[in-house]
C-alpha cells in the first residue's frame, strides 16, 4: 500500500487494542446511506508505480517545451542559483508547517525574520510580514489594510492606476468588492504612458480617498513620478500604497523614500527573487509598512525575543491580529501562506546580495533596451510611449498582435504580452521584456523572426496543439 506502513499483523493488533474486528467497524457512526459505492469513484484511475508516473510526467513536461521567452508582464525568468532550491527542498524546510511550536521551528522562524529584514531593507519601510499568496492578492490585502488604517478619513474609495497590471486590477476587484470598497481607475497619459498627478486629481474629484496605489515601474515599464504621486496622496489624507518589483528596487528609489514622507505601504510579487516561472505559481506576495500601521498588517509576522535564559530566539508575534485568535475580527482570513517560497527568496537574496541584485536588474534593463533597439529597427515597430522605462517596453506594431504572437510561438518564441485586449486604444501593441537570461543571439533571433513575419504575413495554422 503506497505510503501506508501497516503489516497484516499490525492491523490485527491495532484492531484488538481498539476492540473492533475490522477497520470498517470504525466508520459505524457514519450513516450507512452516506457511504460511497465503488462506481462513484470510477473516474479515478488505478494506481501507478513511481516509474510509471515518472514516464507520464516526463512526457507531459516535454510537451510544454522550452520556448524562448520574451514575456514579462508580472513574472520574470531570472537565473536561480543552484543552492536556492537544493536547500529550500531539504525535508526540514519542505515538510515542516507553520512554526506554532517556536522552540522546534527556530530554523524557519529565524529565516522568516531574515526575510522580513531583507524586505524592509529593499522597500525602506519598517516592517514586513512573512508573505501572502502572490503580488495581486498582496495588493488586495494592502488596500483593505489601508482603508482600515487610515484614521484621517472614513472614505472607502481607493484610486488605482489603469497602468497597473490588468490581472492585478481584476484580482483586486474580486477580493475587495464584497466588502463594499470603491475602486476608481486613473487613466494614464497617452503620450508618456505614466500616471500624472492631474489625472489623479481628475479621478478623485471632490471626494476623499482612503488610499492611492502607485506602481513603479507601471505595467508598461514606464517609470512613474513617484515622489509627486506620494505627496499628492498625503496632501489629500490618503495613504500611499506602492506596488513594486523587488529586483527593480535594487536600482530604484525605495518606497520608504518616496516624496516627503515616504509611501505608507509597499507590496508586490516576490517571484523574481528565486522562484521559477511555474506557469504562475507558487509565488509569494510581500507586504511591508511603516511601524505605525503594523497592527493592521495581515499575515504571519515573526519577532525576535528572549528565551528563559535570556538567549535571543524567534517566535510568531502580534497573533492577536490573526484569524485563529480574532476569528471574525481578524485583519484577514489568511493562514497558510507561501513559506517555502519565502525560504527560497531569502536564500536567493543572501546569495546575490545588494550588488548581485543590482547587476541582475541592470542586465535585464540593458537587455530590454537592446531588444527595443533591434525591434525598433523593424519598419512599423516603435515605442508606444516616450517616457523612460525600466526592464519592460511597450511597442506599437504594424500588424495584428495576436497573429504575430501565434506565428512566433509556432517557431518557439514567446514574443510578449498582447496589450490590445486590455487597452483597445493601444492596439496593435505588444509588451516585451528580456531578462538577464537572454543572450544577444536570442535577441537577434527574435528580431529577425519578427521582421520576417511582418514583411511576409502568412495565414498561420499554428493553432494546432498536440496532446499527451
Amino acid at each position, binding site marked *: 500500500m503506497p505510503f501506508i506502513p501497516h503489516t497484516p499483523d*499490525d492491523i490485527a493488533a491495532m484492531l484488538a487494542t481498539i476492540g473492533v474486528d475490522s477497520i470498517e467497524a470504525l466508520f459505524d457512526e457514519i450513516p450507512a446511506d452516506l457511504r460511497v459505492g465503488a462506481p462513484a469513484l470510477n473516474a479515478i484511475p488505478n494506481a501507478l508505480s513511481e516509474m510509471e508516473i515518472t514516464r507520464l510526467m516526463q512526457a507531459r513536461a516535454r510537451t510544454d517545451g522550452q520556448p524562448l521567452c520574451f514575456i514579462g508582464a508580472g513574472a520574470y525568468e531570472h537565473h536561480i542559483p543552484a543552492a536556492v532550491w537544493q536547500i529550500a527542498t531539504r525535508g526540514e524546510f519542505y515538510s515542516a508547517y507553520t512554526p506554532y511550536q517556536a522552540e522546534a521551528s527556530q530554523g524557519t522562524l529565524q529565516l522568516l525574520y531574515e526575510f522580513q529584514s531583507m524586505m524592509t531593507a529593499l522597500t525602506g519601510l519598517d516592517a514586513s510580514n512573512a508573505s501572502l499568496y502572490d503580488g495581486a492578492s498582496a495588493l488586495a490585502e494592502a488596500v483593505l489594510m489601508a482603508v482600515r488604517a487610515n484614521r484621517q478619513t472614513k472614505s472607502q474609495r481607493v484610486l488605482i492606476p489603469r497602468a497597473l497590471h490588468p490581472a492585478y486590477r481584476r484580482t483586486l476587484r474580486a477580493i475587495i468588492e464584497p466588502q463594499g470598497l470603491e475602486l476608481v481607475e486613473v487613466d494614464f497619459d497617452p503620450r508618456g504612458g505614466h500616471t500624472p498627478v492631474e489625472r489623479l486629481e481628475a479621478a478623485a474629484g471632490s471626494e476623499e480617498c482612503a488610499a492611492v496605489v502607485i506602481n513603479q515601474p507601471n505595467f508598461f515599464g514606464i517609470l512613474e513620478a513617484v515622489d509627486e504621486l506620494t505627496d499628492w496622496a498625503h496632501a489629500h489624507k490618503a495613504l500611499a500604497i506602492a506596488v513594486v518589483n523587488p529586483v527593480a528596487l535594487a536600482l530604484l528609489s525605495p518606497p520608504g523614500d518616496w516624496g516627503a514622507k515616504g509611501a505608507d505601504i509597499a507590496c508586490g510579487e516576490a517571484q523574481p527573487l528565486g522562484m521559477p516561472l511555474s506557469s504562475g505559481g507558487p509565488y509569494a506576495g510581500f507586504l511591508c509598512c511603516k511601524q505605525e500601521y503594523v497592527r493592521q498588517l495581515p499575515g504571519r509576522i515573526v*519577532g525576535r525575543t528572549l*528565551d528563559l535564559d535570556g538567549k535571543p530566539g524567534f517566535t510568531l508575534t502580534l497573533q492577536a491580529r490573526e484569524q485563529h485568535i480574532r476569528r471574525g475580527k481578524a485583519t484577514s482570513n489568511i493562514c497558510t501562506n507561501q513559506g517555502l517560497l519565502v525560504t527560497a527568496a531569502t536564500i536567493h537574496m543572501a*546569495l546575490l546580495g545588494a550588488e548581485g541584485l543590482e547587476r541582475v536588474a541592470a542586465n535585464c534593463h540593458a537587455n530590454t533596451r537592446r531588444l527595443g533597439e533591434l525591434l525598433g529597427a523593424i519598419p512599423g515597430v516603435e515605442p508606444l510611449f516616450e517616457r523612460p522605462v525600466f526592464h519592460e517596453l511597450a511597442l506599437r506594431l504594424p500588424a495584428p498582435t495576436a497573429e504575430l504572437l501565434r506565428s512566433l510561438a509556432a517557431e518557439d518564441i514567446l514574443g510578449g504580452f498582447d496589450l490590445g485586449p486590455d487597452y483597445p486604444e493601444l492596439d496593435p501593441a505588444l509588451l516585451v521584456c528580456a531578462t538577464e537570461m537572454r543572450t544577444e543571439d536570442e535577441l537577434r533571433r527574435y528580431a529577425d523572426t519578427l521582421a520576417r513575419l511582418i514583411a511576409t504575413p502568412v495565414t498561420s495554422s499554428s493553432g494546432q496543439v498536440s496532446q499527451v
Partner: protein
Amino acid sequence: MLIQEQSRTGRRATAQAPLHSPEVADIPEGLRRRARPALPEVSEMQAVRHYTRLSQQNFSIDTHFYPLGSCTMKYNPRACNSLAMLPGFLGRHPLAPETHGQGLLACLFDLQEILKAVTGMHAVSLAPSAGAQGEFAGVAMIRAYHRARGDHARTEILVPDAAHGTNPASAVMCGFKVREIPTGSDGDVDLDALRAAVGPQTAGIMLTNPSTVGVFDRNIQAIAQAVHAAGGLLYYDGANLNAILGQVRPGDMGFDVIHMNLHKTFSTPHGGGGPGAGPVGVSKRLEPYLPVPLVAHEDAGYLWLTESDRPESIGRLTAFGGNMGILLRAYIYARLIGREGMGRVAEFATLNANYLLARLQEAGFEAAYPERRASHEFIVTLKREAREFGVNTMDFAKRLLDYGYHAPTTYFPLLVPECLLIEPTETESKEDLDGFVAAMTAIRHEAQETPEQVKGAPHSLPVRRLDDVRAARQLDLAWTPGASEDAHG
C-alpha cells in the same frame, strides 16, 4: 547569528550574479536608489552552511512524528517534488500560450476530474491558493448565488463554535455577519440551536465534518435539510477530508460548495507555512460562479477558461490563477495512490487515530468525547493533570519536543479545556504511535514526580521557552544595520 550579522563589506557570492554591470544612465537620477539596501554580503559557502544549519533547527515530517491536529502532517512523497520540478513545468511562463502548455493543462484537467469524483461535486476550480482562499471563494459564490436571485436579505453565515478561525474570518471578508452555533455535549452540532437560528437571513452554514472535535456529525443530513429548507447553502470546510476520503463524499452529504486543502489530504508539502492549494468544488447551481481560471478539454486540446468565458465568475484570486506547482504535486500523489488508495487513506488515518486514542486511554489519559468513535483525529483533555500536578497542556506540548515529538495542536478547539488535538495520519507506523504513547506516559510520570522538569521544558532544543509577551510588547521585527549589539539587551 543572523545572516545579516555575518555580512562583511565587499564579500560576495560572485558566481551567482551576472558578470557584467551595464550602464543604466537612461534611468533618471531622481528615481534611482541613493544607497544600496542592507542585504547580506556573504560567500556562497557561508550562505549554504547558514541555511543548512537553520534547517536543522526545525522539526519536520521528514525528521519527526508531527501529529498536529487539523493539519494532516502526512508523508510528502519525494517523487511528487522531483516530477513537479521537471524543467518543462518549472520554466513555463504563466502567459505562455496553450500550445506550449498541453502537458500542464492535461495534468490540471485530470486533477479536476479526480477531485470531482472523490468529493461528489459537479465542478471544480483549482484556483484558490490555500484553504482560507478556498473559503473566501466558496462564501463569495454563496453570495453571488443569492444576489443573482435577487435574494439580498441573506446577510448571515452560520458557523459552529468549534470551527476553524478562518471560517468566520472568510465570511466577514465576503461581507457577511457571522452567527455562532453551539456544539452539543456529544460533539455534534446542537441541532435545536441550529433550527432556531436559520431563517430568511441565512445565506449558508460553514461546516467541517468530521468536525474540529474529531467526530463525524451524525446529524449531517438533518443539518443539510434544515439549512436548505430555510433557503441557505452548505459550505464544507475540507480541512478534515483526510478522514473520509474515498469513504464519504461531501456532495452526497448535501454540501453545495467545498474547499479541499491539497497540502493536507493530497500530501503536498506544508513548506514551513505554505504554499498550499485550496481548490473549490460546487454543486450544479453554483457552477457559473467558480473562480477563474478553469481548465476545459475540447477536440483541439486543453484550454483555459477565463473571465471572458465565464461572465458570472466571482473572478480571479491571484494574478496567474493558482499554485500550479502544488497542483502538480497533488496530481502526482493522486496517481500514485490511485482509486483504491483514496479509500485506504481514510481507513488507515482512522485506524491510527482510534488506536492511538485507545492506547492513550489505557495509559490513563482522558478523551474529550469518550463515547464517540475518533475520526482521523481526536481530543485528549489534560484538565486532570493540570489540576492535580499543576502541569498544563502547554507544558506537556513543550516537553514532548524534548522527547522528539512535534506537539499536537494545543488549546484548539477552544471549547475543550486543556486540550490536545491529535492527528497521527495514515503514514505513521504502529511503532511510532507506540513511541508517542510511551513519551506521553513518561511525561505524566514526570509531571507527578518532577513537575519543574515539565514546566521548564523544552531543555534540549536550540532555545528554551520564548517570551511571547516580550515579543509582542517590545517589537523587534527586522534587523537594521548597527542594531545587532543592543538588540539582545
